């Protein structure tokens, strides 16, 4: 077990270092700004005096390294500074929306993960049949469509023409959970469509890859029925790639959410980010980027740890 612990710790360490490097990137990218933030915020028309005043207010006269550590320290304690546009505290602007975004991503994941793994196994079992080919074409089409295309199609057919679901996923605090699920169904479905197709293809590929192994042939020659060959002999060895695929797609959900939130006017962190980018509200942009990147890295880390834990060679060392 010592080996596993060591490996897991090593991955965790690597994750922390990556996150640190990314925080540096995110912070200093803004430093690359032609001129500086104060100038950018106030525009060309601002007098030197007002610019200087803002500069002092934002602490820009201090060296960048110092400001980085202040920012990082703040970020670690949940304080991302103040919005340049509204003057609101960034943490307050983000927190509620971040929960909404997480909710949407989880909603989609809960539907997509089981469906795609089961479908992936079925398609692997039925490989090279007509069903498999049709599934191949359908999933490829689904992957290739931009999220906003799928989103608007769903709006057109399930909201505008038939009125089954609301076209705009607005939230209010006094909604029941069932109502919440109904309101957010279309954005969740859009995400499910994109992600399921991808996960299904990868699950299929992971299993089919293994089907060429001699131990699978051995199992077949022992008279093991086909479904059991897949479930008992292929699947346990396919966990590592499947876990990676799931993590990759959950991470993708986090980014895909940005576009979907815009389509459905969903009050999540993605929409906030897009707004902030067009208004050049840097504290918010930095905070959102850091949060997205952290989630992304965390998921990949979980996948790495997951594949280490499911590897029989590592689990039972010599």
């Amino acid at each position: 077990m010592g080996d596993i612990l060591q490996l897991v710790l090593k991955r965790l360490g690597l994750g922390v270092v990556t996150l640190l490097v990314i925080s540096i990137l995110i912070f200093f990218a803004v430093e690359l700004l032609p001129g500086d933030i104060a100038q950018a915020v106030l525009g060309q028309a601002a007098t030197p005096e007002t610019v200087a005043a803002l500069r002092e207010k934002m602490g820009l006269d201090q060296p960048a390294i110092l400001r980085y550590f202040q920012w990082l320290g703040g970020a670690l304690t949940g304080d991302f500074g103040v919005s340049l546009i509204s003057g609101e505290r960034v943490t307050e602007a983000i927190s509620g929306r971040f929960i909404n975004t997480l909710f949407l991503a989880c909603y989609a994941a809960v539907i997509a993960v089981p469906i795609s793994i089961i479908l992936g196994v079925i398609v692997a079992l039925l490989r090279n049949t007509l069903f498999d080919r049709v599934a191949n074409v359908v999933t490829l089409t689904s992957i290739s469509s931009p999220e906003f295309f799928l989103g608007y199609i769903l709006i057109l057919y399930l909201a505008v023409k038939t009125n089954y679901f609301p076209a705009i996923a607005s939230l209010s605090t006094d909604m029941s959970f069932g109502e919440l699920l109904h309101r957010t169904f279309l954005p969740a479905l859009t995400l499910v469509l994109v992600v399921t197709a991808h996960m299904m293809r990868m699950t299929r590929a992971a299993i089919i890859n293994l089907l060429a192994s001699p131990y699978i042939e051995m199992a077949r020659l022992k008279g093991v029925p086909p479904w059991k060959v897949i479930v008992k002999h292929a699947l346990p060895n396919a966990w590592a790639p499947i876990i990676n695929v799931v993590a990759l797609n959950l991470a993708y959900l986090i980014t895909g959410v940005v576009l979907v939130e815009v389509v459905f006017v969903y009050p999540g962190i993605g929409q906030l980010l897009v707004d902030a980018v067009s208004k050049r509200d840097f504290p918010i942009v930095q905070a959102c980027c850091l949060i997205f990147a952290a989630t992304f890295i965390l998921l990949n880390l979980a996948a790495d740890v997951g594949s280490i834990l499911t590897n029989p060679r590592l689990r039972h060392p010599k």
Partner: protein
Amino acid sequence: MVPKKDVLLQIKDLRIEGYSDENWIEIVHGVDLTLHKGEVLGLIGESGAGKSTIGLAAMGFARDGCRISGGSIEFDGMELTTTPESDLRALRGSRIAYVAQSAAASFNPAHRIIDQHTEAPIQYRIQKRVEAQEDAMELYHRLRLPNPDEIGFRYPHQVSGGQLQRAMTAMAMACRPDLIIFDEPTTALDVTTQIEVLAAIRDIVDQFNTAAIYITHDLAVVAQMADTIKVLLKGEEVEEAPTEQMLDAPSEDYTKSLWAVRSFKRPQKERPAAADAVPIVSVKNVDAAYGKIQVLDDVSFDIYAGMTVAVVGESGSGKSTTARCITGLLPPTKGEILFNGEALPPRYQDRSKDQLRQAQMIYQMADTALNPKIRISEIIGRPAQFYGGLRGAELKNRVDELLDLIELDPAKFYNRFPPELSGGQKQRIGIARALAAEPTFIICDEVTSALDQLVAEGILKLLDKLQQDLNLAYMFITHDLATVRSIADEVVVMQRGKVVEQGPKEKMFTPPHHPYTDLLLSSVPEMDPNWLTTLLEERGTDSIGEAANV
């Protein structure tokens, strides 16, 4: 002779097709086969003879991309070609079992050995789990596995190759089948390990009176195992006869030629008598390591011009690592390599063009040794152009000359690509590429072990002829003692990174030996069908388990 018994398996006019390039092509052309209860049939042939395919067909099974297209397979009164898949499945594992070539790859890494063993008996409701496990341990005892009560509860990667192969034989026995197909079960093993597995397989097949089809390309191995031998060539039967008759008096020319391969032998040359003769290559007290693991320990030997030094050892003995040290791919941690008396820079990057030119290499796998996307003319021409600066017509003449030298028709091969060539032809191109540099010393790394015997013999003869003509020095890395016997002048025996013994060939093959050399020599199967029995008696049954650990 095999006593007349009940017929267990009767194959008639079996035809099997394989799918390639959008077409179904017949690869087995009407083979007949009869197997009685308790009989062991040896199927022998070179690669592409269709032996594995026939073996699997005996289970009513065709690999993906193959199909049984004609003939009948009757197992104990049941016609397998028309039996539905679900009934065939019920037969597999219970009445017909299979032992694969590589046990390491054929055990599922995710499950314990004993759980894979008991899968079939539990599935067929022959035994409950506990009974099945007890039975498995009993079989492990019989197959003389170390720690038989405990070994099954390990995962495959925790057990050595030879032991896994025996565990797989035990697994095949789990339901006490009527027939076991052994598909090259010892090919991937070292000679000393091979013996334990052969002995274990033979014992257990005898004890349970199981019929078996034993597939192999090694004549000496099949002589120990089989009652009857059937020789196959390109999906067709050449001949079939009881083992002794087949060994003593084969009737077909092809079989005779197979038998005769090991007869090629050339006279042993002696080192130059002059006291001041300098060896072409001299390995002096070399240590080497991969990371922290030391793989070579104080290795020293000399190679003189025009002579062949065979470096012999099992996998992991360090023979290929020695070659990597000489070529400069792996700089030694201690010691040095002298070339014509001068020390070579340890890294190949620091060597001069001329130093690189003088030492060339021929590889084991001709498939990976030749770039599949470059024409033969350029593969051979590049060294001549690179070192000799030849261009245009001069270069073309040189390539033609080299192709002549390796006995391939220049007009036919000049413009072709490696994938269009056969294994033997590719190996010849590999030789021509080495010759194109006009070297004085060539390292041959297992150059014949991936080839069929007849083809291998041709390559050995060619190498010998080139040596005579061009006064080349060879370092011949091999695990095959038959090759050593035929081509070597001197022999270096290596074990676990050390040279255990070295000297002229004749001396090495006459006793007294170093104990390891002795083990190595005695483990090489001989064509005598009683060889294994005699050897086991000599060694004493108890020593088998430890044989590999000497």
